[in-house]
């Protein structure tokens, strides 16, 4: 089978022409670096993405703290992850890197804060 993938690993967004059989990659062309091949392999077996969203904050100078995942999770768990993160409310002060949920849904990725919010 042949398919064109757009690698999302870096902003180059290489268009990779891949030949594969089932989950096995036979050949790739068009990737500017070896990560492109890994990306295609991962896409065939278990596509993963990171997400970023916000959580409510009480007592801070801002009503929301932005958060992100430290590692990509399976694409089909993204909405489960959103629901889980949506339950959280933090209390100021909070700092970049604070872990909000360790090992989110057992998927091996942490939810971390990406914004400093001091007490109001």
């Amino acid at each position, binding site marked *: 089978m042949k398919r064109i993938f*757009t690698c999302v690993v870096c902003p180059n*967004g290489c268009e990779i022409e891949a030949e594969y059989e089932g989950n096995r990659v036979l050949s790739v062309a068009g990737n500017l670096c070896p990560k492109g091949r890994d990306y295609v392999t991962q896409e065939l077996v278990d596509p993963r993405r990171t997400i970023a*969203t916000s959580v*409510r904050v009480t007592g801070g100078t*801002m009503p929301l703290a932005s958060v*992100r995942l430290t590692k990509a999770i399976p694409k089909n768990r993204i909405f489960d992850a959103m629901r889980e993160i949506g339950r959280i409310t933090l209390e100021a002060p909070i700092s970049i890197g604070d872990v909000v949920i360790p090992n989110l849904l057992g998927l091996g990725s942490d939810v971390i804060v990406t914004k*400093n919010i001091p007490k109001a």
Partner: protein
Amino acid sequence: MTHVQAIVVGGGPAGLAAALRLREKGIEDILILERETLAGGILRQCIHDGFGLTRFGESLSGPEYAQRFIDRVAQEGIRCVADTTVLDISSDKTVTAVSRKRGLMQFQADAVLLTMGCRERTRGALAVPGTRPSGIYTAGVAQNYINLQNIMVGRETVIMGSGDIGLIMARRLTLEGAHVKGVYEVLPYPSGLPRNIEQCLNDYGIPLYLSHTVTEIRGRERLESVVVAQCDERFEPIAGTEEEIPCDTLILSVGLIPENELSLAAGVALDARTRGAFVDEHCQTNVPGVFAAGNVLHVHDLVDFVSLEAEQMAESAAEYLNAGSLPACCLEVKAGADIGHVIPQRISGTRDFTLSLRVRKPMRNVTLVLAQKDRTVKRVRLRKALPAEMIQLTVRKADLCEDADLEVYVE
């Protein structure tokens, strides 16, 4: 009037990076003037990741990327005055600003670094006919509401234009439970980066309609529907292809415009193609001692390159401050066949330099040529060249001949 060596207008990614590099180059007296309450510019609301891959080798969110610079500015003791709007810059580098706390302020600067960024094109600029209901936002405004203020903008959404912020917002709205019915782009190719088409639209099954536009807006108080239609090569709607799409929200992502009102006041000449200043290889405008970099100069697709450009500008500004002037730049760089624009527009010919440019249309397997008279200075083979992706070309002084203008074109 207070004397300041270097005033940086705008504390976004370009301004912060510029101020830091000025300090590294030994400039002591630096003042950043920022309109918002906090520094960081547009990055404050860009909570998605993907920033800093080039610079830091990791994928950061916008606020994290900005904070690294904000922290260093604080460590260096560089003055950053927030909540302060610059009202005027004169050609003799008098900067007039106002803040609620301090009232009207005037500074005499030796160098002014313009880093005001860009703003979004609005519905008014597009002249979409129809009523004027609520529920119509530019992508950046919707992003501000959702990511900074916790205000959800709507449920049933149509996106007009495929700029990167619109694509990012298509994903963001979907994650927040809204239904994005489609992205309608008037051009026959997407305006945003391929990776954003993939990870913001394709990942979530959001359709992208190329050569389509919104022809009418309907609704009284709140938006009720939009009419979309297919377009021909001249971007005219094709009769009979109209379709009414019920929706309560329309997001516009139809282009960014460098914010240059202050530059014009200072007598800075603008390039009609970039809508930013004409600059030389030092990022110096036609007004000596006034420099520009980042999105105020030309709209970038990656913040990493904004920081880099701002740092290069700051190095030149420091040299200008220390030496009193910079080497003259008399050679013109012209945008030739299939090139939308090129920065800088003038070079000295006596130093290495980097050109930043965009092509006019998507192309595959083409050669980018930089020529001087009939002599080829540099040729680069490109597998793909997209208007969405800024292309950079480094040129060595050794490859140039003395005094002829340059032209960059696609062969």
